[in-house]
Every structure is written in structure tokens, then in C-alpha cells.
């Protein structure tokens, strides 16, 4: 690819770094979780802007005033663009009427109807705040409906941070917490079948993301016929099929990722893109699970907040109107095709996996160490393009062709810097 550009300015992140030191005094780990430097794999952390001053469209602006093209989209919620005017207007209108109140707003029914009319498998919807609220609830529903204990997960899973969703050996997780979990490899329906024979009448649910979008590894799409086989095994054995569509929901198919892959899940969990950053999550289910769901005690102080529901309705309506899902996939494809070409031009082997609007990047040159890729990511971040080295990325509708062009130029410059810093880089080639 022919690129002609002036070298990009390296951003100053000193205000963010100073602010982080202040945070360490009063907040565990300063910024805990996936947005923080440790779980966010910000290597080296000194290159990273950590705090935002404002956000707009595809950009986040840090405390030092730098504009950064954000390919993490808050790890998913930014779907249409930060501060989308239509979504914000709907939220503001609802805020005038009320938000967290003793009598709930009937906008909750409007939102449920919008979801039922949008999501192919949905007969009803139930709301919470985070994706983990819904994946936790999905397992409770499966157990309530089947009166069974065990849950099957696929390796590379991430369903949230409740103890059963984590792994033995992780802080605060006991053997008892994960004692009802059974595990199979991704794309291995025969392993699921074997578990059904080993534990007859004991498996309540099969929970999985629509495709394997785990961290630190190439993302893997379902093999042809995979979901159809899983659906059949669930039906044959009375097992509830749960789609964790928290991350992929509305980034692969507006009707649900189960629909995209040709099946109907019994339960589908949504969050992230559903309300363009307003805090609401949802679980959709089919009619056979309605009564079992209604009888479970499960709620939270803000779960009927009306403002995020208004935002959710506006988000879904706008996404349909502008074909945001399809457009985001096109942008993701265009961006990553260009990145792979630029990498090749510089002698690097960039591997792109996953669905286009949720692309995962790694280098073939340095796997599994990822040292060169981490350096490339850091050089991109230093020039105002926020990638990560460990996690899939996200595309938002506000991303423009100019942003993609700018990203390509930064990517090219960053590859040249990594190459210069590592004249011995061939030593990493496997």
C-alpha cells in the first residue's frame, strides 16, 4: 500500500500518569479491571493515556488533550459513536420524566417490545446492568427450569467475573465455586455429546459465546454445522442453550448472533452495544422459560432505571435505520485488510481473526511471546490510535474513512519503528 504522510507527533500523557499515581492512594490498583493498565495489558504503561477528558464519535480525548481513535470502544459499549445525538436526546427526554423511581416506567415495556421485535429468538426480555448480571441469571434460569446442577462451558470462555465464571487458582475462587462446571474444547460437539452420556439428566445448560473470542489467542469462528449440532444435543438431552451475546451482540447481526449462525438459542444475553454506553443489559428468552424466569428472585437497585432503556430503544432504532451492524463490519474489513497489507509491506505477518467488527490482531512473527506486537501496539497508542495486544477490538459506526487512513499511516510508522528497534526480530519467527 502506498502511503505518503508526515511522521505523527508522539502524544504527551504526563497528566494521565500523574493522575494515576493519585488514584493509587484511594482506589485499589488505581484503575481496576479491564480498563486498567494491568488487566488492560498496557505494556509499557508509560506510553498510555489512562484518563479521558471527553469523548465524541470514534474518539476519546485524554487529560492532556490528545485525540485518540478508540478501537476498544470502552470494550464494546460504544456502538454508534460516543455521545450519539439521537441516543442522547432520547435519554435526556426520559431524564426529564424520571429515571430510578418507585413506580417503574412503562418504557421498560417499550424496550422489551423493541427487543422482542428485533431479536429473532426472543419472546420476552428481562433487564439488568452488566453482562455478568445476565450470564449469571441465565444459569439460574437453566437450573430453575431443569432442576439440574451442571453447566457446560467451552474453553476460552469469558462470561463475567462471578466466582463460577472464573477459574480455579484465581483469587477468591474456591473449588466449590466451579464444582458444577464441565468444560469442552471450542468446535468440539462430540465432547459435549460425551458429557451428556457421562452425566445423564444432570446438565442444566450449555453456555457459550457465539464464537471463540477469548484473549491472548486467535479468535475462532464456529465450524460449519457446529451450532446446529449443539442445538440438537441440547434438544435431545433437555439442556438449555444459552448464548452469551454480551460482546458480539449487535456487532455481528441485529437479530442476534445465534440467528446469524443459523439457530435459535433458548436464552441470549446482551449488554455492551445495546444502549450505546448507557448502563443496561438484557436477557432474552423463549416462551418455555418464561414462568421459570418469573419465579426467580433476581433484581438490583437500578435495574429498572428508565433513562438507559430510552437510550436502548433509540440505539436499536438508529442502528436499524443506518444499517450500523453491516456498516461496522465493512469498516472493520477495510481497516484490517489495510493493516495486514501494511504489515506485509514492512516484513511482518499480521494475523486478523474473528468477526470484522470485532477483529483480533496478532503477529505471526513473534507468537506466542507477542513482544513485537506489544511494541507495535504501544507505538500506535503513542500516536493516537488505541489498540490492544491481548483482546479483540471493536468498530463503531462513527469511525470514518479519514480515521482509517490515519490509522494506516500510524500503523506503518509503528511497524517501521519496531523493525528498527529489533534488527534481530527474525529470531522470534516460529
Amino acid at each position, binding site marked *: 500500500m502506498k502511503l505518503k504522510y508526515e511522521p505523527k507527533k508522539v502524544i504527551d500523557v504526563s497528566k494521565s500518569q500523574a493522575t494515576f499515581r493519585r488514584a493509587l492512594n484511594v482506589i485499589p490498583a488505581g484503575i481496576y479491571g479491564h480498563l486498567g493498565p494491568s488487566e488492560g495489558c498496557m*505494556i509499557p504503561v508509560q506510553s498510555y493515556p489512562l484518563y479521558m477528558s471527553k469523548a465524541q464519535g470514534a474518539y476519546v480525548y485524554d487529560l492532556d488533550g490528545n485525540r485518540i481513535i478508540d478501537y476498544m470502544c470502552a470494550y464494546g459499549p460504544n456502538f454508534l459513536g460516543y455521545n450519539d445525538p439521537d441516543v442522547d436526546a432520547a435519554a435526556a427526554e426520559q431524564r426529564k420524566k424520571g429515571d430510578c423511581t418507585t413506580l417503574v416506567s412503562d418504557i421498560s415495556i417499550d424496550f422489551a417490545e423493541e427487543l422482542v421485535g428485533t431479536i429473532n429468538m426472543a419472546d420476552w426480555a428481562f433487564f439488568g446492568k452488566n453482562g455478568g448480571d445476565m450470564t449469571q441469571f441465565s444459569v439460574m434460569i437453566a437450573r430453575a427450569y431443569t432442576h439440574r446442577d451442571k453447566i457446560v462451558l467451552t474453553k476460552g470462555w469469558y462470561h463475567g467475573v462471578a466466582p463460577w465464571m472464573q477459574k480455579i487458582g484465581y483469587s477468591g475462587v474456591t*473449588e466449590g465455586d466451579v464444582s458444577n462446571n464441565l468444560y469442552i474444547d471450542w468446535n468440539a460437539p462430540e465432547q459435549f455429546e460425551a458429557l451428556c452420556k457421562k452425566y445423564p439428566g444432570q446438565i442444566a445448560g450449555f453456555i457459550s459465546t457465539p464464537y471463540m473470542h477469548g484473549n491472548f489467542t486467535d479468535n475462532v469462528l464456529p465450524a460449519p454445522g457446529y451450532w446446529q449440532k449443539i442445538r440438537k444435543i441440547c434438544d435431545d438431552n433437555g439442556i438449555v442453550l444459552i448464548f452469551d451475546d454480551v460482546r458480539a451482540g449487535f456487532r455481528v447481526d441485529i437479530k442476534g448472533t445465534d440467528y446469524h449462525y443459523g439457530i435459535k438459542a433458548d436464552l441470549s444475553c446482551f449488554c455492551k452495544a445495546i444502549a450505546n454506553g448507557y448502563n443496561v443489559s438484557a436477557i432474552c428468552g423463549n416462551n418455555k422459560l418464561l414462568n421459570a424466569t418469573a419465579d426467580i428472585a433476581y433484581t438490583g437497585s437500578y435495574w429498572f432505571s428508565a433513562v438507559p432503556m430510552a437510550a436502548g430503544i433509540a440505539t436499536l432504532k438508529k442502528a436499524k435505520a443506518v444499517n450500523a451492524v453491516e456498516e461496522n463490519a465493512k469498516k472493520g474489513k477495510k481497516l484490517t485488510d489495510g493493516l495486514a497489507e501494511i504489515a506485509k509491506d514492512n516484513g511482518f505477518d499480521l494475523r486478523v481473526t474473528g468477526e470484522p467488527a470485532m477483529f483480533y490482531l496478532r503477529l505471526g512473527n513473534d507468537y*506466542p511471546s507477542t513482544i513485537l506486537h506489544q511494541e507495535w501496539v504501544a507505538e500506535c497508542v503513542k500516536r493516537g490510535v488505541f489498540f490492544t*495486544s491481548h483482546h479483540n477490538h471493536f468498530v463503531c459506526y462513527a469511525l470514518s474513512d479519514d480515521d482509517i487512513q490515519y490509522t494506516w499511516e500510524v500503523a506503518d510508522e509503528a511497524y517501521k519503528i519496531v523493525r528498527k528497534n529489533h534488527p534481530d526480530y527474525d529470531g522470534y519467527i516460529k
Partner: protein
Amino acid sequence: MDNVTKAKINLFAVLRNIQDLCSMDSEAAELIKGKNISVQFNVKEVGTGTLKFADGKCTFVRGKGPASLKLWFTSPEHFNKLIDGENTIPLFVNVFQVGFLLGVFQKLAARMSYYLQPPADKKAELLKDPEYFKTNTILTAYTAFHAMAEIANSDKIGKACAARMFDGTILLEIKNGPSLNITIKDHLLSVGMGSIKMPTASMVFNSLEFTHKILNGEASTFGGMGSGDFGLSGAVALLEQMGKLLNMVSVYLG
């Protein structure tokens, strides 16, 4: 916590440290001057380790081999009692060398305790001495990382963490200080001394002070990463599991 893993840690991490103690501490070096003897510890269900003293140096060797004094412990608990300082008598061969065990060896053990388990009322004062601080921190680090490997290879939960680790080598480095490397092969961990080129992942402590804080539970690795006191690079998936294993060291060593 299981007794087999504890005994492995006591043998291959704690007792092993006498090798480094003799190279770092002048009093320990003086104690072994002119000694030419090897002491072998055989622990049922655990394995064998030998401390060889020769030419003013001490070397720890894992596995069986010739030794001038051989000790047998009938169970992991039997050996753990010895390390915990309880009165216990091993079975031994070569009565003529027992004097070394009761004399020099006991003094070396006391020297090790001086660095690794200083009395609570004297600890703060001792740590003000830069040389003591350095020896205490480095010996603690060696113990912790060798113990971590034993946990990965023996403890039930440790094995679960190791099962998530792919083959590779992790470099552990204290800036302007010593380095260690951990090799993972078929989900088994082994520790080597010194630096390596092109590690799969690396973990760098930017100062002895921060290393001390981490090893003594006075700082968080997550916080340290953010503040720049602690740097990671390479295969974070390996480092993540190593972090879980390191967390378990305190279960065994307190």
C-alpha cells in the same frame, strides 16, 4: 496445603537457598571454608537433594548421587518437622560425619533464619542495613520463585494453573540485581539462575525496594504495573498464571 508440596518446597526452595546464602553472606562463607562434604536429604514421596560443600562454595543438586552423609526421612511430615525446627531425628548413614550436621549445618540454618525469618522485634532495625536488606530480599525472592515451581508441579490447584501454561521461558529480573528464569515444558516448571535472551515473557522489578514490598505483601503487582515499579512484557497469559502461582507461595511459607 498438602504435606508433599510443603516438603518439596522445604527441600527444593528453602534448603536449596543455603547455596546462595554461602555466596552472599560472609559469615556463612566463613563457616564452610575448608569443608569438603556432601549432605544428601532423601524424603519419601518427595525426592532427593544434595548440598555439596567444597572449595569454599556450596552447591545444591537435585536428585540422587554419591554423598558423604545421607539422611532419610520416612515421610514428608517427618522432613517438614525438621525444617520447622521441631525436634526430629532422621535416619542416617556415616556416623563420622554427624558432627558437621550438628555443628556447621545448624549454624548455616541459623544464618538462613537470620535472613529469612528475623525476629519481629528486630526486623525493622535489621532492614535499615542496606546489605541485610539486599540479602533478605534476594534470598526471599529465590525462595519464593523456587517454591512457586514446586507448587505448579505438585499442588492440586497449582497444577491447574500450570495446565493453562504453554511451553516457554519467563525471565524474572530485578533491575541492577540478579535474574532468574522459569522454563515451562509440558506444564512442568523448572527454575534456572541468570538471564536469558529472547524470553517468551518477562517480569522486571524496577528496584530492590519494590521487590521487597511485593514479596512481603506490602505492594500490589497490579498497582506496581501502573506506577511503573514493575514491568511486564511478552506472553501475558503465562505471566497471569505465574501470578496465581506466586499468590499461593504464602499459603505454604506463611
